[in-house]
């Protein structure tokens, strides 16, 4: 048995947090796992024909239907009495999860399959050239929402896919981050111990699309959490049951500044947009209780 269940030799960009998070997830899930993957960077960089980086069974079908294929795999395991030993993970990027794959995912949750679904959220369609997705944050410059003299980037809010999952009434929903590797692995283990549909939303910086140095991946992932822009929260049976309390709250500028996709926000005239991003963080902090309030 190799030490890690995702082998080296995959072709992810240097410093890619999605490759890091996928390895952490699978190492925590263990060898008796079947992975079904939507199209996206993760599928492409891990399975360059004729090789594969996966040490476990892995199926790729289409961009939109991993959840449907995974449902079939789970049903077959159930029928053959093998679901107690073999578990199924259905995984995708943010586009594959929250946009094009959402109906298959919703069906899978609704039918109650015993599957862990994972969203690796790098906040755009990276594999095809950084197009904006439903999970791209407000005022991000992407190739389809470019910042310019007349635009401050993506005008729309980041979809709250976590609460969409919670609204399905599934037993476990959580967010995690590549900047908190042990917490991520703990949540995978917790999810795998629960029967029924589970959803894990993992924040994964992308040096290529976010335009930061490869060695900043870990730090930037942590700053997203420590500014309140990416809340680390857990829901069990519809109720919030866990949150990462921010010990030393940082201004959103600390997170935005090292990233080229937000460079336009530090030019004269973008002050209102910056202020709005801070307000998004403030609303997250209030909504989920991310900072200890003095009583």
């Amino acid at each position, binding site marked *: 048995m190799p030490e890690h269940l995702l082998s*080296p030799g995959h072709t992810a960009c240097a410093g890619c947090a999605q490759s890091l998070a996928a390895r952490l997830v699978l190492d925590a899930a263990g060898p008796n796992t079947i992975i079904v993957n939507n199209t996206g960077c993760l599928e492409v960089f891990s399975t360059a024909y004729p*090789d594969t980086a996966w040490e476990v069974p892995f199926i790729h079908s289409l961009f939109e239907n991993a959840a449907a294929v995974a449902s079939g795999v789970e049903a077959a395991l159930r029928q053959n009495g093998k679901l107690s030993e073999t578990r199924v993970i259905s995984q995708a990027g943010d586009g594959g999860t929250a946009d094009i794959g959402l109906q298959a995912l919703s069906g899978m949750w609704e039918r109650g399959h015993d599957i862990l679904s994972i969203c690796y959220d790098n906040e755009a369609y990276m594999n095809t050239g950084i197009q904006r997705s439903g999970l791209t944050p407000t005022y991000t410059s992407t190739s389809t929402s470019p910042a310019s003299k007349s635009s401050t980037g993506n005008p729309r809010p980041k979809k709250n896919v976590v609460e969409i999952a919670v609204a399905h009434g599934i037993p476990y929903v959580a967010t995690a981050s590549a900047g908190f590797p042990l917490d991520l692995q703990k949540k995978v283990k917790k999810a795998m111990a629960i029967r029924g549909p589970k959803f894990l939303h993992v924040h994964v910086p992308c040096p290529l699309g976010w335009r930061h140095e490869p060695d900043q991946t870990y730090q930037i992932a942590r700053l997203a959490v420590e500014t309140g822009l990416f809340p680390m929260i857990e829901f069990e049976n519809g109720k919030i049951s866990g949150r990462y309390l921010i010990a030393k709250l940082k201004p959103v500028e600390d997170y935005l500044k090292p990233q080229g996709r937000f460079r336009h926000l530090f030019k004269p005239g973008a002050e209102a947009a910056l202020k709005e991003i801070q307000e998004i963080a403030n609303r997250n902090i209030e909504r989920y209780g991310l900072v200890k309030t003095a009583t």
Partner: protein
Amino acid sequence: MRIKLTAEPGSARNNKTGSWRVERRPQFLQKNCSACRMCILVCPEGIVSGKEKNSFKTDYLYCKGCGLCAAVCPKKDIEMVPEETESKK
């Protein structure tokens, strides 16, 4: 024409991504290491190994030189050095 539709587990190892490294590679100094394992945890290639203090190393056949291991080391015991530097540990 018939082509194979399945692949051997972990066969991506055939692809030696160490050739991607052009500028810098991590040097594991093995002086102040406290064996906290952070470098093992964050390496996106999963190629850092080691158990005892000051025993950690990477596999240059695959290391892409991203610098994450050096960035997270709390003891500053991993240094990114120019590719030409001698003594590969």
